[in-house]
């Protein structure tokens, strides 16, 4: 398809894809390369990277292998990012579709709720949710998803608002189609692409949100999360700054990759809008 060809014409998009595949490879290979529990003690604490061939990235304050935590952390980040994004997009599409299609009081009510979620700073809401429901992997993932749905909802609503008055939708109505048929068969296939592309932005933010939570020791302490490691490294920042530096680079690379892929998708699917 042309879209795929267009995607590969952009060096940035290709670079993003490669980086993303690297991260995914790290996540998949984590169990093979580091079969032991990454949070188990492995060696002497605070070894510098490249000082010991067994620990290419060194060890942290408790003597755990940093490289193992990085590899396993890739799994966590991608998992949380992916699932939270899916939750957010799903809720967002449903809310946005009904608000945009029906308008009137349905729109009013749904938009008030969306506005409520957007007026409250989303990190604060995340804190509240974590305070109430605890910090397990499941609750954190759902919380991040719940905090992220307003933006996809607004986007979907905007798309539906503009599409529902298009002549091909009106034509569908004159042909006798029912509302649900119009929403699912006529409008949604046209509204979906920008929302799917936006999913990359949602995922980038989700990964950043979770790592911030972990940094504050409010995420699941029993998993090897990159944010956790950064938080630990804060105590030894003066000398062994690498403990915080390395997982941060990992987060940066992953979020960068996701963003580049999203941008590449956007340019590939909307060639008209690429004002280059």
């Amino acid at each position: 398809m042309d879209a795929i060809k267009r995607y590969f014409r952009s060096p940035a998009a290709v670079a993003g894809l490669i980086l993303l595949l690297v991260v995914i490879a790290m996540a998949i290979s984590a169990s093979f390369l580091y079969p032991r529990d990454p949070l188990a003690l492995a060696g002497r604490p605070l070894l510098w990277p490249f000082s010991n061939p067994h620990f290419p990235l060194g060890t942290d304050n408790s003597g755990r292998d940093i490289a193992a935590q990085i590899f396993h952390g890739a799994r966590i980040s991608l998992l949380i990012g992916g699932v939270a994004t899916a939750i957010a997009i799903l809720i967002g599409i449903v809310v946005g579709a009904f608000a945009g299609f029906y308008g009137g009081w349905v729109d009013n009510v749904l938009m008030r709720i969306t506005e409520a979620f957007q007026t409250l700073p989303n990190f604060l809401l995340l804190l509240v949710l974590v305070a109430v429901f605890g910090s397990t992997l499941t609750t954190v993932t759902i919380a991040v998803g719940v905090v992220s749905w307003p933006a996809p909802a607004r986007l979907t609503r905007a798309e539906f608002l503009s599409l529902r008055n298009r002549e091909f939708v009106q034509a569908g109505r004159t042909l006798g189609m029912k509302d649900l048929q119009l929403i699912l068969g006529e409008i949604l296939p046209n509204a979906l692409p920008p929302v799917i592309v936006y999913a990359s932005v949602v995922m980038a933010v989700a990964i950043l949100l979770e790592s911030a939570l972990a940094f504050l020791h409010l995420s699941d302490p029993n998993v090897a999360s990159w944010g956790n490691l950064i938080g630990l490294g804060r105590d030894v920042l003066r000398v062994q700054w690498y403990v915080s530096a390395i997982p941060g680079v990992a987060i940066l690379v992953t979020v960068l990759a996701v963003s580049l892929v999203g941008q590449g998708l956007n340019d590939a699917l909307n060639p008209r809008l690429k004002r280059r």
Partner: protein
Amino acid sequence: MSEIAAILSVEGLGVRLPAGADRAYALTDVSLSVASNEILCIVGESGSGKSMMANAVMRLLPNEVRIEGGRMLFEGCDLCAAPEAEMRRLRGAEIAMIFQEPMTALNPLRTIGDQIAEVFSVHTDLSRAEITGRVLALLADVRIPDPNGAAKAYPHELSGGQRQRAMIAMALALDPKLLIADEPTTALDVTTQAQILKLIRELQGRRKAAVMFITHDFGVVAEIADRVVVMQQGRIVEQGPAAQVLDNPQHAYTRQLIAAVPPLTAPAPRRLSQEDILTISGISKTYRSGGFLGRGVRITRAVKDVSLKLPKGATLGIVGESGSGKSTLARCLVRLIDPDAGSIMLLGRDFVTMPRARLREETRHIQMVFQDPFASLNPRHKAAELVAQGPIVHGTPRATALAEAKELFALVGLDPSAADRFPHEFSGGQRQRIGLARALALKPAVLVADEPVSALDVSVQAQVLKLLADLRTRLGLSIVFITHDLRVAAQICDLVAVMKDGAIVEHGLAGEVFANPQHAYTQALLASVPGGAFARQHATEPA
């Protein structure tokens, strides 16, 4: 017109398009000239390169498009080779331009007076007070109502015609020797168009400027041109004095374009059935918008108590300008909008009071063809599916519906094997045919056509109209035909109703309304059709 020196002389101009465009050159070997105190009309359809010509003279081509070869001599200076600083000195002061869409061509965040004053501040040293005085004088010159208020107004506060007048004032501020007008009246109402054309002609005569007027409408050419240049696919196919080209066109394309301009006299009336298939009585629709807790509500009465009858097998034309309510009425007929009052009787049933559920079934009897060929087809469905959608929704098995769709393709003059393509692979005219096929798939008794040819090129318009007339006889269709263009209505309608501000001001047999308009508005409308005199004279010749 003897040895008036040419202000602009274009010789062998070529303009290259970037790779990936539908042809290599926008303009090939174009040679023309404009003398002072004359109006040169450049005529062509979309893709002919006429707008590119205008942009080339101003050297305002888009980034990837380049001038390749030829010269453009303006008062001895070659515009192709002139440095940018020189071009800036000429733009606005010696060569000025007016554009097609007055709404988007003016900066929405600055006042009209401000934007006109800018021309002075860029090219002259006049003081603030002097500039203000000149701006007001210009606005009075272009006959804008309340020049003082207009100068302080923002573009969105003026009407389309007033905005275009402001643009003309801006262009003529420094008395340019050459005025380029790129389709300045295309986006305006017929009556406004007539006024603006008159204004341009008057100002040109007074200032003895040279005008290069770009248009796609031969009626406009007949109205104001001194000389004509006909363009097709980037080349000039014919040029000469207007009278000569109009009366004695040499090139086949020119003849085709002139023939495609619908004449203003209706064809011989057909025999109409006595039985009425559609009866519209007292339809009204009022919109209430804005207001806060009941105060300051804006009431717009879009349709006021409209009553019409459509005989079986006949075509009823509803003619009006934008804001007349004709589109609202059309949408009321197919219940896309719910009228506030009145009844629509079709096949013995009242469609206004019908409940939604039953309406979905009964809607098959009255179908609609839409205006925009690009927006009326869902880009994600194949053409055959689009045509088959209606029958499938009403219970026809898929395979049968698709087979019938292919037959309909043949009926509307499209290749049935193309039915598996997506809409973006078809041209505008072909897409309208698909829309027609879709509407006919449910075998409706009445077809409502909402400006079906307005977005098409003139030559394509003629084809689609011919198709409609053909199908009308073959299938015994009754058609309600909505349009803003009287000439189109004259072509195909048996009965005509003229709408203004939501009400019907006149209606009757097409021939009678055109030959003998009773209402003042109808008379004004008929008088505003560009090239009316030419069209009437042209119509007496055999087609």
